[in-house]
């Protein structure tokens, strides 16, 4: 019970921080909306999409990229959360949290959950705007997407957590974000289906296939149509376990070499 009080405090602090940072809120929404309203209009003509699962008929390019843009929001949100972790470490509040009398995995897990909740909130608003634009899914699709989005958010948050454990200064973080976010996003099925990539470059298609972000996006894509993609689920869970495990190792009290 006492541990839950601590977890609630960590989550509430993160949510309050997000609500008070209006620029962060709008930036998080503007990015995917620009992709949806501007880039998708241009790409629609250039990219032909064949019928691939989970779609049963031809779809617009805008419809195709909605799950990818949900993933994009979660990816940026995960990185933003890790940025706030680096900031917490620089401001000293991280020390305060890590010296609380709870297991480190629990404290970092609460931080991870908080970041995922912030991401989910942004995705929910994005989906409402997309709905207003005519990109609608069934109620079952929205309900099924919720746990898929949550898992994707937690997995990407765990990646951010791992990165924050390795990065010592905020200045270094911007560079790493560029080396992580953009390759992950563009080497995935967020903007184009895998077979399109396969036609262009088998090597890049292979990289797409092993990219955890691809599987997070596919998990959400299938869920939005009320379907389960077991392979994507497995990959996403595996990636979460790997990233969170590495993050915990990174946040372990430093060991000295044995003497």
């Amino acid at each position, binding site marked *: 019970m*006492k541990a839950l009080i601590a977890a609630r*405090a960590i989550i509430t602090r993160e949510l309050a921080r997000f609500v008070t940072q209006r620029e962060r809120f709008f930036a998080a929404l503007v990015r995917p909306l620009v992709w949806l309203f501007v880039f998708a209009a241009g790409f629609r003509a250039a990219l032909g999409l064949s019928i691939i699962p989970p779609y049963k008929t031809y779809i617009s390019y805008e419809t195709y990229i909605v799950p990818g843009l949900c993933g994009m929001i979660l990816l940026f949100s995960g990185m933003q959360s890790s940025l706030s972790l680096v900031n917490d470490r620089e401001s000293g*509040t991280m020390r305060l*949290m*890590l010296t609380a009398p709870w297991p480190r995995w629990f404290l970092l897990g609460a931080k991870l959950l908080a970041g995922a909740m912030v991401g989910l909130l942004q995705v929910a608003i994005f989906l409402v705007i997309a709905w207003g634009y005519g990109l609608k899914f069934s109620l079952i699709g929205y309900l099924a997407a919720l746990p898929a989005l949550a898992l994707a958010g937690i997995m990407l948050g765990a990646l951010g957590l791992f990165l924050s454990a390795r990065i010592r200064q905020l200045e270094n973080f911007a560079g790493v974000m560029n080396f992580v976010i953009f390759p992950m996003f563009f080497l995935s099925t967020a903007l184009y289906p895998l077979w399109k990539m396969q036609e262009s470059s088998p090597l890049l298609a292979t990289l797409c296939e092993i990219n955890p972000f691809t599987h997070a996006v596919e998990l959400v894509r299938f869920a939005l149509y009320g379907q389960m993609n077991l392979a994507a689920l497995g990959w996403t869970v595996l990636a979460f376990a790997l990233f969170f495990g590495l993050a915990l190792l990174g946040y372990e009290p430093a060991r000295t070499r044995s003497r």
Partner: protein
Amino acid sequence: MTEALRVAGLSHDWGRKPALRDVSFAVPEGRFCALLGPNGAGKSTLMAVLTGLIRPAPGVVSVGGHDLGRSPRAALARIGVVYQAPTYDLDRSVFANLKYFAALQGLSGAMARDRIAASLARLGMEERAGEKVAALNGGHRRRMEIARALIHAPRLLLLDEPTVGLDAPARAAITAHVHALTAEGISVLWATHLVDELHPDDDLVLLHQGRVAAAGRVDAVTGATPLAEWFLTRTGAAA
């Protein structure tokens, strides 16, 4: 006399650079113990070890009889910490900062509010509760951090150079406040390089180049030599 803190055979390296070497000492209950040492002596490293932020190899830290390595929750619950660097949210109020910390310790509701009020009153900060931390001066920020460290009723208070950057009156006030806490049975480990913060009847652990160079009551250890002179002689540092 029972011990609030016992450190035994503790060593730590930063990479290839030795930071602590076979450090052993104890802080009895209700005593003010100064961890005195020049800059770079290993005080902050020792504080990081005592709060579980880094793990020593080898060495044992016991807080109120609880081994920090084996029972970290029980040990950490007995410790209040004031770090050398600030550890607060500048854009939140004093009360919000303290409430967050109380919750991290598992305190909520009326109990948390009562503890926060009592801690702030103890440090003469009641009227500052609603102010944003950014609006406070350095002395009040430090007092807030000390008040925060006391919320969960710790038996041991660790302070890492808590008067750094403060003016003389603020330093004197904070030093007096913390000395007074020992009357309530709270043990204090106060890391500093400023000898004027010590009383003759305080305990002293002199840390120099990562080793304990002397330990005991201040007046007993220094004898007839003034503390500042004694410190300079033993470490070659300007006090």
